[in-house]
Structures are given as structure tokens and as C-alpha cells.
């Protein structure tokens, strides 16, 4: 069942580099990350790649396979025709450190800019009561494994380095949405600051992020669009916001 696979792997750093051709054996059921490991063990001992769990749960092995942002551990070799050369390159939206490893520190900086959960005062551990239906909306976003494929594919930053300063990206729009929909969060104006400080307005809902999400989170439909719509609502109706929070709090306490 073994087949011989032709690969082109990008090797280099932030200054120089290029695609290198490799031929390697592949077995039935193997994923691209298996192949990269085989190349590492037998031909390129210093080939740089990030990975951890090899089970689609940690979001470390993000890269571009034939130009598509993917997790290498969840990409079956069998999905590609026998005679096709598979091209493996690093994420394009972030600076290359070496080979398939990029500098994703942008995302950790953005995480620091999102105000954290603000709990109701006086609420004690063990006291919260929340209904399953109320936590499910945020739970969808908390499935995020931080692979940053959505950040990588979003054309607002993929093709426009200058936007990085003012654009948090889809991963952090779902973080804001998650907090905004969290039944216990008391911080006001999350949608408004998403618009004004985190660049929500730059998103023109092409849904590229949703398409690449390995967790199948409906980033655009369930986080971005609802936030965009309600920014408009609440701008003119602060009572509505307050009402929704008070109601939620009463259920909680």
C-alpha cells in the first residue's frame, strides 16, 4: 500500500529560502505530518516544523498545503492524486522563522488587547447558575484550538501588513463574541470596541475564516455578523444592552 510521494517543501528563513524537492515513501492512512516526520528522520534532520498532539486538538501544525491553510495532522495524503506533487509552505501572513515555522506572536499580542471577563461583583465560587442553552453560544467559540489558520487566511492581514496594527482578526472576533455572549460577563460595549478598536469594520464577510476552521466554528455567521448587526442596534439603544445583562444576572444569582 506504500506509495512514493513527491513533495516540494519550503526551506529557509526570513531572508532567503526556496522550495526543495523531496521524494519519500507514504503508507496507507498517513497524514502530511507523518510524511514531514519521515523526511525529518531520514533526509532533513533539521527541517523545522511545529507540532504537538498529532490529533487535531492543539493547533500547532498549521501550514499551507498546495496553497491552502491546513493542519498537517488532519490532512490525509490520500486526498491528493498519486501523480501530484504536494507543495508545503509556511503560513503566509506571519514572518518565517525557519522552514515551516512562523512567528505567530502577533496573535498573542492581540490576545492581550482584548479585555478579560468581568464577573458580577459579589458572585462567589459555586454560585453561578447557567442554562445549557445560554452557555452553548460561547462554547462554540471556546472550541477554538488557536491554530491561527483563520488569521492566516484573512485577506485583511494576509495581503496588507499595514492592517495588522488595527485588526485583531477572526480568532479574536470570536473571543470577543464569546465574552459578549458569556452569561456572566458584565463589561459593557464589547461590540462597540470590537468595531472601533479591534477592526471589526474592516471585515467584509467573505467567510474565508469559516472555511478554513478545522473546528468548523461558524466564525462569520455566529460571531462576526451578529456583532456587526448589534453594534448598529446598541449604538442607539443602550437600555437594550442593560436590559439583557440585568435579566441574565438575575438568572445567575
Amino acid at each position, binding site marked *: 500500500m506504500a506509495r512514493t510521494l513527491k513533495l516540494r517543501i519550503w526551506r529557509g*528563513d526570513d531572508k532567503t529560502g526556496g522550495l526543495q524537492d523531496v521524494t519519500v515513501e507514504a*503508507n*496507507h*492512512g*498517513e*497524514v502530511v505530518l*507523518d510524511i514531514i516526520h519521515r523526511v*525529518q*528522520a*531520514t533526509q532533513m*534532520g*533539521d*527541517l*523545522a*516544523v*511545529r*507540532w*504537538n*498532539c*498529532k*490529533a*487535531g*486538538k*492543539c*493547533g*500547532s501544525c498549521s501550514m499551507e498545503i498546495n496553497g491552502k491553510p491546513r493542519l498537517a495532522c*488532519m490532512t*490525509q495524503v490520500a486526498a491528493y492524486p498519486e501523480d501530484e506533487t504536494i507543495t508545503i509552505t509556511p503560513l503566509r501572513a506571519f514572518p518565517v*522563522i*525557519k*522552514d515551516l*515555522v512562523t512567528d*505567530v506572536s502577533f496573535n*498573542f499580542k492581540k*490576545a*492581550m488587547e482584548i*479585555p*478579560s*471577563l468581568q*464577573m458580577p461583583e459579589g*458572585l462567589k*465560587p*459555586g454560585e*453561578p*447558575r*447557567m*442554562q*445549557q442553552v445560554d*452557555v452553548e453560544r*460561547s*462554547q462554540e467559540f*471556546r*472550541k*477554538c*484550538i*488557536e491554530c491561527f489558520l483563520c488569521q492566516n487566511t484573512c485577506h485583511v492581514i494576509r495581503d496588507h501588513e499595514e492592517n495588522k496594527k488595527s485588526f485583531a482578526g477572526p480568532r479574536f472576533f470570536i473571543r470577543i463574541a464569546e*465574552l459578549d455572549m*458569556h452569561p456572566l460577563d458584565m463589561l459593557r460595549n464589547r461590540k462597540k470596541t470590537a468595531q472601533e478598536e479591534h477592526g471589526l469594520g474592516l471585515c467584509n464577510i467573505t467567510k474565508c475564516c469559516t472555511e478554513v476552521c478545522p473546528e468548523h466554528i461558524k466564525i462569520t455567521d455566529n460571531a462576526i455578523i451578529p456583532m456587526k448587526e448589534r453594534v448598529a442596534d446598541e449604538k442607539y439603544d443602550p437600555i437594550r444592552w442593560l436590559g439583557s445583562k440585568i435579566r441574565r444576572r438575575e*438568572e445567575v444569582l
Partner: protein
Amino acid sequence: MSSSQTLEKHKYDVVIIGAGGAGLRAAVEAREAGLSVAIVCKSLFGKAHTVMAEGGAAASMGNVNDNDNWMVHFRDTMRGGKFLNHYRMAELHAKEAPDRIWELEMWGALFDRTQEGKISQRNFGGHEYPRLAHVGDRTGLELIRTMQQRIVALQQQDAKEFGDAEKNMKVFAEVTITEILKENGKVSGAYGYRRETGSEVLFEAPAVVIATGGVGKTFKITSNSWEGTGDGHALALKAGANLVDMEFLQFHPTGMVWPLSVKGILVTESVRGEGGILTNSLGERFMFKYIPDVFKDKYADNEAEADRWYLDQDNNRRPPELLPRDEVARAINSEVKAGRGTEHGGVFLDVSKRLSAEVIKKRLPSMWHQFYELAGVDITKEPMEVGPTCHYVMGGVEVEPDSAAAVGVDGLFAAGEVAGGMHGSNRLGGNSLTDLLVFGRRAGKGAAEYVKGHGANPVSESAIEKASAKIEAPFTRTGGENAYTLHQELQEITHNLVGIIRTGAELTEAIAKIADIRKRSANISVTGDRKFNPGFHLAFDLDNMLLVAESTAKSALLREESRGGHTRDDFPGMNSTWRQVNHIASFDGDKVNIKAQALPALPKELFDLFDVHELEKYMTSEEIAKGGSK
């Protein structure tokens, strides 16, 4: 080599090695006690192996069955560990686990809910009541993300107050620690390198918390991520600490077995908790044949009762699929060996007959996804093929239970999987996540108290030079051994000779072979330069795995009985005399030595929590007569 002028140096009160659940919880505790904290991890922040925990976190909150309390949890934990647990750790864990879960909720975790809006709890192997707080089958991710976001929240507070988010707590991601430094017999810091550049880093700190997780990558078939290379176990040994009971390794009964590429990936115990049944190739639900005497009164011996349990847990005994993991793993192993396995050497696990497709996708979403994408199996329609996979090491650094201080090394602490004692000879599912939180917090607190009583302990130039020379060494050789090849050879040895079923002859052979690889590993050479070079990284990981494998094989050879995660074909029974023995591994700079040490006896108040007839199955008549220590 780095000259000391250009060497990157940092000073902190405490350095935490590892950013999984235990490390992050320790960091939060130490920070809140007023310490400056460095969190050092091999991967990016938030990628720790904790994300792989699926089923849940065990805590006797009593939200689903209010008969539950810490005493029931304590009893279950001791039974699961076959009474080899350090009683004090099991006691602290059972008592404090609920607070640790509620605290996570205050930090933003969103667990699944009961009808009344409380945190929902699910059934799991070995737990008498539904006890596992969970989020679908991705509980570990929720835990790590919550802790990660808690760290960010504290950093945001510091940014506001001091204008510097990293003033009190900083994450050093993608840094490998190669050595724990000591001066005058006490911890003085840690030394390592940045994976990205290969440049060296010195952390000066009077306290170090090891929270590096497990050792799974020592084995060929494992559910562990690449980071599980026993770094903390080896760092502790080299620093003069002890490892306790390294012979006990948990083979999780249900890992994927096919295709080869995914062999070992975890299939959560929740599949069985939600009603999944195990069958062999003849279609027999075989677990009824494997209920050991000590569990006969708690597990159903027929299908009808087992099935009724799902609807009425008060009046029926539990299905044997929910026996502790060691029992289920051995049963699967026996079925396969007897020729009743599946085509790919596993058994069938089927949840499709009990639950609707919709419920399966809701309660076990990542299992559905994992099988569909990696094996082409739709678990809502067909059974999974599963078999044992190396999952968890019960053995680990010997610690003082209350402070998590490593025995024998001032200033060193250990928490989480890397620490030993808590789980005895076998860990119950769900006890790991709360172990991380309970003892992560205690390690942070222990370190804070230690630092307040001890000043800085400066690192000497000679210690730096020695640590640095070690990092440079593989680059000074050419044409030597290939680290990848040696790693594969080690995995073959452990898999074949130190695996789920062991014999004295095979363990003796393993010890000799591991020593041989260790000799050859001194001649590893690395191609390429220091910049993000996985071959170079593996050279260090391998050294750690070799020390772990040696500790495990030597401890396993000495223990002439079968108990929990240690099964000797040549000594198949459990032996009450052996229950009183811990194996303590230490390192003399050349080899690992094992000595026997008395297991601390149950104090009277804990002894009295058990029915004496149950204790008679585990203890000697002298112990029973004593009735626990005073």
C-alpha cells in the same frame, strides 16, 4: 558556547517549567502570593498536552448525585490505585477538587450544565457517582484556555498598574530547560536554550516548579503529544530528587488502532461513560469475564443489569466497561492475544446502538470528528476499533504532599503528571485534571512560602559554563549517531519489553539494551545549526527518555507482583506485602538505582472510611489488626 557577557539572563522568584494545567495553576498561585514568575514551556503558550484531556475533571460537587462527597471520591481513588496511593495526596485531592473547579468557572470556564443550571457531571470508570465536570469531550482544552486567559487577565492588571504586562509574570515559550541549577545544595535556577534560535538562557531563581507532564514518547504507541519526553522526571533525577514507583504506567484501554498513522491516539473513556460497549470479533461483550474479585460487588455480571444501570444507577451495578483502566486494558490485551481481536489487532467499541447520531455528535463531537477524518469511520453508524495505548505515568517525582516540595532538594517543587504518589498504581480517569489544579496550586503556594524564607541563591560562573558546554556538545561531533534512529530503537525496546505485560527475563534484557542506547547516545551528532533544529532538540529529549525508561525497567524488574499499571506474567497476583513498598529511583550520575521504601500507612481516620472487609483484600492481617496509624 555563550560567553557570560552575551548570555540572556533573567532573575525571578520562581521559575515554572511547563505550561500545562499544573504549571499555569502554580504560576497563578505564586503570582498572587506576590512572587515574580517565569513560565517556561517547550511549545507555544496554550499548546500543552493538557488540551488532549477529553472526558472531564473529577470533583465530588454532588451536582448530579448528592450522595457524592470527598470521602467517596477518596475511596474510589484509593481503590483505583490499588491502595498504593500516598493517602495524603489522595485526601487533599478529593477534598480540594470541587473548589478548583468552581474557581475555574469564576475565571470564565463554561462547563456543560445540569437542568438546574449547575455544572454537569458525567460517569467515568471507577467513580461511584457521576463526578466529571466536562465540556463535551474537550474538557482539557477548556481547562488550558481558562488558565491561559487567567494569566492574560493578571498580566492586563499589571499593565494597568505598572505599565508593564510582564512585570510580575512572563511566559517564555519555546524554551527547553536542560538543567536545574544548584548552589550550596539548594536550587539556584534553571538553564536552557531558545528553540527558535538555539541561543542559551539562564534563569536565576531560588525556587523551581517542575510541571512537565508525562513520558509517553518513550513508548511506540502512545496518546501523548511530542512533549511527553519525561523532561521533568529526568531534570529532577539529575538535580538529586527521587522518582517514586516508576514501574506504574497507565495503558489507556482505548486508543485508535487503525490506520497505522493514528495508532495510539486517544479514544475518550466518555465513550464508555456514555454507554459504549466493548465486543470482540465473535460479537461477545467480553468484559463480564474480567471482573476481578475486589470489584465483584460493584460491577454487573450480566448484560441486563449493566444495561439497566444507565437508567437506574441506585438499584443496579455498573457495567464492567467502566472498570478502572488497568483492568479494561488487560482485558482487551487478553482478548486480542487469544485471537478474538479485530483485523487490526484491537476490539470493537460501539456507541451507535445506544445513542442517536445527534446525541453522539453533541456529547462526543471530537471523537466523531477524529474517526471520520482520520479513519473514515462514522461512529454514529459503526463501531470503532480500539486497543491499549501508553497514556499516563503514575510514577514521578517524590514530593511532600502538602507543599509539593520535591523530597531531598531544597527549592524544587513538582506538580501534575510529573509528580508521583497521588494515583498509586493506577489513575482513575478524570483525576488527572483535578490533580493538576489541586497540586499546581499547592506547588505555587509551596514555592511562595519557600522563597519568603530563603533569599536569592546566585548561580556561579562554573555552573553556567558546565551547562552551556552540554548544550554545545552534539554540535562538536560529526558522523555520530542519529537521534531519530536511537529514539525509534528505544521505543521498540520499551514497547516490546517494558509494555503492558512484563516478565523478569524481558525486563533484564530491556535494562541492558537501554544502557547500550545510552552509551551510543553520548555520541549523537546533529546536522545543521542551532536555529529551530528538531534533530538538536531531540538529542536532549532522548537523554531524558532514556533515564525514564531505565527507571521504569529497573523498578518493574524489582516489583514481583502485578498491580495496576504493572503486570508481571511471571508474578500474576497482587501481593499485600508488596503493597507496603514504594520504589524510589535516584541517579548517581552514571546509572539509576532503585531502593525499596515503606509506603506511608493510612492514618486511622482514613482507614475507618473503608469497610474493613474491603481492606482485607489489599492489606496484610497485621495491618488490619493495627487499624491504621495514629
